[in-house]
């Protein structure tokens, strides 16, 4: 995240919000303030062009049962969208190697993305793979689907090939969105038509998260039991978890540590410093539905002021909420009986250190 660059706009937004909105009632107005103007499209003076290179890599598993696949962040460069000026190289903010979930991409409304996906000759998937993203704007040529669906062409890559996707975080795209493989059977070397044995790579590791932050720099969280507007800049950690049919697969962005990503893998121990704000981004993936619970915590149902302590969601539905850490050990879990019994849970530890501990990774 290009916070340093955007600090000024965040500050302006923050000050503006205090000036304009004396009352927390108006948080939602603030969120939509910009989009409710009738004066045409908003202008994003600090829009960033993200040039991202990713590849698909095999994550080999010993002991049989089949390998997994992961997206790997190879390069992430920032440019000024308007001037073309090079701003930064944030490649080192990502975990090295392929991860599950894939690299957590963090951009802001107004930004655009040029994403190049490679399927390396020897180390990648045996068949075609792609990236289909939700939420953000893109033309049909960047849908990441097969030609038989989009009527245009196969928007994926076979071994040795690369493909470039163009995304634009236009107005109204702020939110947390998934990206994932959409080539269905092609990814494992099958050549079947849709609807036919498309045992794809979507469920075996090829998924990740795109976070588009609101240009207002604000979100809403439940703090001390009250719905409260929050400066996104005040959030210490983003925890991004895919809830698959058998595990939580998590990634972390730590803003106390220069927005570094840490692959937390399977059912990790999530750490947070006492009193810090954490934003959870949860996604379903696969075939099962889930009921998420974080013991001892309540949060806001997205887009409402309803205070909830459980949330049911299904594949590719998102659930995003921000809370303040309370000293102690809580458990995040899927309370559906068979999921809970098979170990879909982990600890959420809030203490003075705030360190997260990765869970089991497929390669160990």
């Amino acid at each position, binding site marked *: 995240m290009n916070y340093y660059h955007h600090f000024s706009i965040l500050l302006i937004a923050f000050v503006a919000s205090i000036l304009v909105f004396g009352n927390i009632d108006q948080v939602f107005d603030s969120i939509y303030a910009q989009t409710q103007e009738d004066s045409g499209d908003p202008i994003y003076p600090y829009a960033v062009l993200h040039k991202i290179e990713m590849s698909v890599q095999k994550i080999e598993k010993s002991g049989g049962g089949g390998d997994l696949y992961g997206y790997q962040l190879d390069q992430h460069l920032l440019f000024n969208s308007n001037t073309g000026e090079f701003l930064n190289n944030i490649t080192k903010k990502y975990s090295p190697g392929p991860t599950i979930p894939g690299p957590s991409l963090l951009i802001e409304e107004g930004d655009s993305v040029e994403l190049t996906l490679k399927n390396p000759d020897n180390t990648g998937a045996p068949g075609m793979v792609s990236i289909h993203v939700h939420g953000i704007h893109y033309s049909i040529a960047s849908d990441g689907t097969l030609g038989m669906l989009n009527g245009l062409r196969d928007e994926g890559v076979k071994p040795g090939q690369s493909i470039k996707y163009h995304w634009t975080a236009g107005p109204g795209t702020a939110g947390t969105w998934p990206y994932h493989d959409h080539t269905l059977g092609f990814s494992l070397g099958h050549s079947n038509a849709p609807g036919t044995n498309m045992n794809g790579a979507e469920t075996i590791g090829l998924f990740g998260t795109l976070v588009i932050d609101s240009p207002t720099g604000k979100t809403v969280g439940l703090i001390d039991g009250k719905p409260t507007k929050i400066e996104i800049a005040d959030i210490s950690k983003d925890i991004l978890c895919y809830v698959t049919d058998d595990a939580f697969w998590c990634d972390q962005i730590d803003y106390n540590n220069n927005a570094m990503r840490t692959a937390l893998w399977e059912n990790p121990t999530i750490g947070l410093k006492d009193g810090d704000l954490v934003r959870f981004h949860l996604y379903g993936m696969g075939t099962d539905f889930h009921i998420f619970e974080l013991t001892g915590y309540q949060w806001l149902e997205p887009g409402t002021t309803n205070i909830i302590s459980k949330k*049911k969601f299904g594949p590719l539905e998102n659930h995003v909420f921000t809370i303040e850490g309370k000293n102690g050990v809580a458990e995040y879990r899927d309370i559906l009986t068979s999921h809970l019994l098979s170990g879909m849970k982990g600890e959420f530890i809030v203490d003075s250190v705030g360190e997260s501990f990765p869970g089991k990774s497929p390669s160990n």
Partner: protein
Amino acid sequence: MKMNNLLKNILMGIFAVMLLTSTLTLGVQNSINTAKIDDSEGKKGSSMQISKSQNTEMKLESVHPIIQIAEATKEIGKEIESNEYLKKIDNTKGELESTPVESASEIGTHPNSTLSQYGKVNEVTIKAEKLPNGQYAYRMLKHVLQDGESVEDLTKRYPKIATIPGPSIEMTQHDVLILHSIDETGLKKTQEIRAEKPGTFEYYGEHYRTLGLFGAIIINPNEKVPAQINGKVVSVDIEDLEKQYVLFMVGSTFWGQEIDANHNQKPLWTNPTLGADLNQLVRFHILGAAHQHTFHLHAHRWLDPGTTNIIDTKLIDPQSTHWFIVEAGDKVGIGTWQYHCHVFAHMEAGMMGEFKVGSAGSDTKSIPGVSPLVEVKSSSSDAQSSEDSEALEKGFSSQGNFITFDITDEPGQWFRNVGGELLPGITNSLGIVESKGTAQFIMSSTNTVHTISSLLWPTGAPNMPFDQMTSYRGGGIVELEKPGLYVFTCKIHPYMLGGMIVDDPKTEELDLGDKLTLNTGTLLDPSEANALATTSALLRNFFIANNPNNWQDYSGANPIWNLEIPEMDIKFGDEKTNLKTFLLNPIGGKDTMPLNSIQTPLEPGVGEVWINTQFEKTANKSKPGSATKVNVEDWIIERKVSLPQINMNNPHNMWSDSQQDIIYQTQWFDNRLTAFDRHTGKLLDDTKVGDAPSHVITNPINDLIYVALSGEQGVAELKFNKDNNKFEILRIIPTQDSGQNPTSPHGPWITPDGRKMITTNHLTDDTSIIGLASNLIDGEILNRTETGHMPIATGMMPDGNTAYVADFLSSTISVIDMNSKKILKTIDLPDKGNALPIETPVSPNGQYIVTANTLTATIAIIDTETNTIVKTLPCDPGCHGVNFGAKEGGGYYAYVSSKFSNRMIVVDGDPNNDGKSEDAKIAGTVLLTGKYANDGDPMFNTDDDIIKYNGMGGQGVYPIPNINPGWVEKLDLSWNLTSEQRDPVTSFNQINNQPPLQANNNDDSTSNEVNSDSIQHPQEQINPQIIEEKISQLQQQSVSQAIDPNIVTEQVKNTTLDKLNNIISLLPVPSP
């Protein structure tokens, strides 16, 4: 898919209320800024109060219309009576023609002052009709809108035919709807609905909701509604909508409809292409009528009604409805954008369609998908009639080209063609279409998860194989474009079979195709005799499995097997024959065959055998199945346990506690494990363990219970607390690592030392070997070993070093070294490719294996020393379950069950007791129906009355006492067993001429008192002290022996039972 139903209902109830209240608020205030943060708690409370006050005033409004309409049938009559302005509606049965609909004017003649508070009055009459394929659909008969004095007939808006979804009833907020619905039996009901809350709601029939009787009620708000357009949340006038799409998500199919700007409706049927021009304002209504889904539309995002949340994927289940407004191609442009259910298995099962956005002004139209309609060919009526007669000539009646199969728990109707029996009296699981057609599946009559998977198909056919990676709840839809035979199965319950024949009208015969491909990859080329034999066997099995009249009934003095096979001319490649000839010739060519009379074995067994007569139907429950107890000392049926109080569903497999008091029973087409008292048949406990629990086994060391969950991805571990007769579920041990493809374990076994479990993984064609001991990593997958196709059941050598796995679809037995985890050998079963082996236990002394081959109906005896088949014995159709029990005086009986017969076959694997099984023979048979007195009363204990399929469906077999190595040592001394039977490991080592308990050790110097005891006093009654010592020794040594050599373990030297307990305490004991 593993949703706890109660919890789900509660939660969804809450969600529904939340959705409705927030929608209400939105509509009234016409603003997205409704979520006031300060009074959030108060808001919830107040909205509840609103609901309550409405509830007392007028009941109908406060209830979700879905529920309301479903439950309204009887209550509505009272409601109507109490409303003065309405005349009482005749609620008696009668066709529309004989009971005219009340006209709007009649309503007008009884005006009530309260009416004026409301808007217009819509009087609507819809009628349920049966479609040619057996699905149901609503047709609009009349829609009259009364607005004050003016009356407008809106009927012309609707299609003249019955459609799925049914007509969408569009109303404005505060309108009144008087809905007359005539159900499929002609029964007319009337309901009054006041449209207080704007939004989209569902109406549906009391029956057949999953088969098409559903439609939408769209209540448009009086004011504008918020929507995200061009990146902004703006207020949209409903009148500005250019198109509306109604999509119902049912099974794994979208059923669509379009409403144009003039409110004219057009059916779009299944998975349609929705057409719009760029930037046209369109509204989607997404509704669920069966199963859980998540709706996703590519490249568009929208405001979740009642919130400020922008989403692009939404949970839809039978309780929920969702609507949203988008501009077509908003900021993303023209294109063919996919919409689909994002549940992965549903995507695999075909649940997708296209949202085609054309350029502005291109008038891009929606394109209907395939439908159950039978198109009347306008060219000439002669063509139609000649086609009909052609169909008749070929021996079937036309159901159109769209066949819908309901997936059921009902024996012989697992794939039930809802159109009825295409071949009357022969099968309900076959569909025949001409040229090309559609097969649709819906899991609406089953309690568990399944897959819809191609078993065979015409070679090269498009869209084949149809398959899913995991089991699920839902359905499937697939177009069959190439003539020939298609057979579908459930990979979880592989005897569930549904067939489709796509007939080429150009040939006179019914076409099976040029060549067929099996899902194992095997090509069935009709020019090869072996392929013809396989095809014949598979099809014969299809007609046996799917027709209870074709099951072998051994009751009666001179049992006869009548096989009903249709006499139809068929064509398979260039081969032209009659189906009956083709199927019957390999088994003698006759459709009536005498069956052998029941001959009980001459020598008695020890104890009793419990058989799951899984298809038996009883009077007081809807689901099939019972456990049948055979006393094997005098070969009579003593008890049947059907457990109607829990509607026991397809009991598949059993095990017991070490004391042999409690029988654990899996319910395979459900998600429950049941415990009943072996002595009384009384139900003790019934608990949810996970979907499709297949086999159950205990750990011989600590008596923990392990249940393979074939509809999940692991094995449930439980214990049974005898003090309160309750199960306690401890955990589910995954049988694959996270992220790997789901395994669906079926028939596990545990090594006699209790340290390792091996599961057969249906869906991944391998086994998982799992550590169960504390010095192995408890519950960890030690290895996955690849086997043949669809491994299904396991046998274990007494030393726990070798497992035998039946590869169902490969018709092989994989011999697996439990230590190196490698395949030692693959044993081909007779008639390679045709055997389809299921249960395959090893004799307790490790001498031989008895394998039940379900397709060839044979029993293979395999010598474990050579791993070769030494004898093949005849079995019954659907030969399935095998397990060993003790023969009185020494030796063993293998008890064999068959799904499609009602007898148990008793095999003696070594009659002359010479350690060789070449002389294996059938010692006798036992009728599983039980005896009835002259007055019709059963002469056995039972908890329900058997109404059909008596004794049928033999699957799990569990002899008591359990004399398998590991478990036999725990038995009470009162059992009449020989010392050899009590000490099978020693016997095994004796046979193998190896030192006991050291099978892999060549050190012969180990002194062997146990062994010499056995040799010297084979029939002697050993005193309890010695037995205890022996058990103790066996336990210690086998335990320490199976420990990974790399791991240092404490050497246990004591030889008393107390010390055995010490060992047990070293093993994982779950905390309470």
